[in-house]
């Protein structure tokens, strides 16, 4: 079964009477364990598509099956639970809670779990150790470098072990070294079986994915399999190991 199935998704924004049609009939399926990059010019609707796939916004029309569930039918409580359990987000601007320690930032999704998670503190510590920030638990975002902040957001997005990870320009605010590290982490997460969807402008980031989707003016322009997938994957894994 596909983990994501969307059919004829339209999205129209209404701003002070002016209608902007941003998505104009998008249909696609994503299999579990897929590694997709979405590319396209600015304003093509990439972020808009991600907010819909991430259950942060509803499409104007069209259907969305997430893991076999019709998303349109869900109420706020159910949508919140889906976001909490099945989806992780990584943003270009990090979006960490300001003034809050790395530990508490990673802990945050656990506050909204359906049932009180056991051993939450240990889980958070382990997640931060895994991304090499075990010694920075009490640092606030302002006291962390951009690369460190982005690693905290990855720890946060993974703390609930979601099936899908969405990343919108995850390397956009990072230098190339930190960007490469982040992508190596994604490669590894995908190798472990997690579905990953990365939005990017950067061709060197896009080529990490197995499948490259090009969006233009609200429509899918092309949907290609990345010939170089294995090669780039192994080379970045090597780069990360160094």
């Amino acid at each position, binding site marked *: 079964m596909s983990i994501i199935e969307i059919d004829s998704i339209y999205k129209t924004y209404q701003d002070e009477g002016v209608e902007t049609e941003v998505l104009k009939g998008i249909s696609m399926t994503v299999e579990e364990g897929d590694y997709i990059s979405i590319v396209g010019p600015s304003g093509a609707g990439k972020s808009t598509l991600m*907010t819909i796939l*991430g259950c*942060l*916004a509803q499409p104007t029309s069209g259907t969305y099956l997430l893991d076999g569930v019709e998303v349109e039918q869900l109420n*706020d*409580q159910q949508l*919140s*639970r889906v*976001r*909490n*359990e099945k989806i992780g*987000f990584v*943003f270009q601007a990090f*979006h*960490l*809670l*300001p*003034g*809050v320690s790395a530990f*508490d930032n990673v802990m*945050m*999704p656990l*506050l*909204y*779990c359906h049932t*009180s998670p056991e051993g939450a503190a240990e889980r958070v510590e382990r997640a931060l150790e895994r991304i090499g920030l075990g010694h920075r638990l009490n640092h606030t975002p302002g006291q962390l470098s951009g690369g460190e902040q982005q690693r905290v957001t990855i720890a*946060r997005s993974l703390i*609930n072990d979601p099936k899908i990870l969405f990343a919108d320009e995850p390397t956009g605010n990072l230098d190339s070294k930190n960007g490469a590290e982040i992508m190596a982490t994604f490669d590894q997460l995908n190798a472990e079986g997690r579905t990953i969807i990365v939005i990017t402008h950067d061709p060197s980031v896009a080529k990490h994915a197995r499948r490259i989707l090009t969006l233009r003016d609200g429509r899918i322009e092309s949907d290609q399999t990345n010939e170089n997938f294995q090669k780039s994957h192994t080379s970045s894994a090597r780069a990360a190991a160094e």
Partner: protein
Amino acid sequence: MRIFRNLTQALHGLLLNKGNTFLMTLGVMIGIASLTVIVAIGEGTKAKVLNRIASLGFGPDSFSVYSGAGRLFFGRSRNTTSMTLQDADDIRAMPNVRMVIPRQRTRMKIIHKKDFTTTRIYGVTPEWRSARQWVITDGIFFGDADMERKRKVIVLGATPARKLFGDKDPLGKKVRVGQVFFEVIGLLEKKGLTESGYDPDDRTLIPLTTSMSRLLRKSHLHSLKVVAMSPELVEETMDGVTQVLRHNHGLSSLADDDFRFITPEGIMQWVTESEQAMNRMLLLISTVSLLVGGIVIMNILLVSIRERIHEIGIRRCFGARRSDITQQFLFESVFVSLLGGGLGIALGLGLSVALQQSTFIPAKITWEPFALAFGFSMIVGLVFGIHPARKAAWLNPDETLR
């Protein structure tokens, strides 16, 4: 429990946004403090008025009839001349009446050598002393013989005695009022100022007959003090007095009374009415001050939501429900209100105690306004927090992250 986690998040949020927290707490604190202080002042004023009434010297069996239409101490005309000794005699003849003291009253300068003071001068009959049960500390009170002979004798209250004679003994000395020289024959016991600053000792007493024929040179009375046989008979006696006076003054059945009663009940009623008016005013002021505190909270929360719109979006991305956000912001406002309420109560209590110790504004501390204030601050937090909280919760998660 999810709700406790939201509570913790709210407390963290308040700690992180210290500036806003401080301003909101201040808003509620000022509202609550002013509420409690205003009520304390109101209660203090009430106590003071009651005290003043107690000092008027009414027993439960007595009342006064003042000449002239009007209400209580507020006469409508100053020159009604209809009340006479005949009225006093007729009332005294009523079976329910134990005692009637007819009175003339004036305010004049009283002079001894080079010292002088202006004081109230009452022309009364010898029964006055037993009706008021006022002790004579030195000398004697005038008697029937003084009345009959219209003797020029005077009894001084403590205030004129002190002002005219200082430490010297006034007994036997002469004082002049207008063109008449009086001999001081007695001194009234000092009662001291009432809380309101009314001085009951600022008075002198002369025989009524002397007052009528030598000092004022007119025969109409200022008022009558009537003592009934028992407290239960007061009302009946008042009806009888009304009939006698209306008859004696030749009032037709359509005419208004040309006299008025002053009774402890009448004064109480008047006080109650003024108190109710005062309470309404207090209520208005308190409501306004709380409203101001509430609106401060609401505005700061709304501003705070704009500042924290990202935080809301992030939380929503990672699984916060609308109800979680609502709870978080509501907890923040309720907590701030309770904190501000607590501090306001402390401040209000401090100010009330300070006022109580000072003499120029009366204050009386009662527990009710403080309990009320605490309840109010909770309600303020809920009522004024709900709008910002719901507003925060209904923001679209995708739009808050832009």
